[in-house]
């Protein structure tokens, strides 16, 4: 990295490039570390690349080796379906949305469907990329997570 910067400054001093060209080159060289391989941290671990989550997974599997009668559920939902569903939901007439919110409220789910916007869902999906829900019950283990 220092060699590159030195070379750029040499070319500038020799008049081979202009000041604005040198600026651009130095900025590019300065940004290079962000795109290159990240340096190893104290623990010697290279952090995993942050990928956008593509699927929501719900896995229910029996604990232990005996699986007779125990439920085993494997659900994979594309997050794109959530996005498209929210956009379709925005087309529901307000009267129908109010009725749906009322019905959900009666079941104890206090959600105002009019507040669900595509931007809010995008933020939620971004936040879900690091989410893992792990529940260990007596006979089953439930995991909810996102995968790319």
């Amino acid at each position, binding site marked *: 990295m220092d060699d590159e910067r030195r070379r750029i400054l040499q070319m500038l001093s020799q008049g081979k490039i202009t000041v604005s060209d040198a600026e651009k080159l130095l900025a590019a060289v300065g940004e290079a570390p962000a795109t290159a391989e990240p340096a190893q941290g104290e623990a010697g671990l290279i952090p995993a690349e942050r990928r956008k989550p593509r699927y929501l997974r719900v896995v229910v599997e029996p604990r232990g080796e005996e699986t007779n009668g125990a439920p*085993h559920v494997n*659900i994979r939902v594309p997050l794109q*379906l959530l996005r498209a569903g929210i956009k*379709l939901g925005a*087309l529901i*007439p307000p009267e129908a949305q109010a009725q749906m919110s009322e019905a959900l409220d009666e079941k104890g789910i206090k959600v105002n469907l009019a507040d669900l916007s595509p931007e809010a869902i995008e933020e939620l999906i971004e936040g879900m990329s690091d989410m893992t829900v792990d529940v260990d019950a007596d006979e089953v283990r439930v995991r909810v997570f996102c995968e790319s």
Partner: protein
Amino acid sequence: MPPCLLRIRCSLDSGRRVGLWIPLFLLYPLILALALVVIPVAILALLFTRHRGKILPALRALPQTCRVVSSTCGLRIEVHFGGNHVLVAMS
């Protein structure tokens, strides 16, 4: 990309098994042809009845519905319970 194949597999404790492979890519041209016939008739019906105000929302819902269908690619639901097994997969 819309899903091309719908796979449904059920095997029950009683020994009964059902397996379906539905090639959705063959259905899309049929649905498109049907839509080309039905949509203009539906629009005319809405125009000449008291539901005139619902034309625009209905038209806006069409592309969103197509997006929802396209987003189901990769959906997989698999449930084992006792001796019963149900699989629904869209790919």
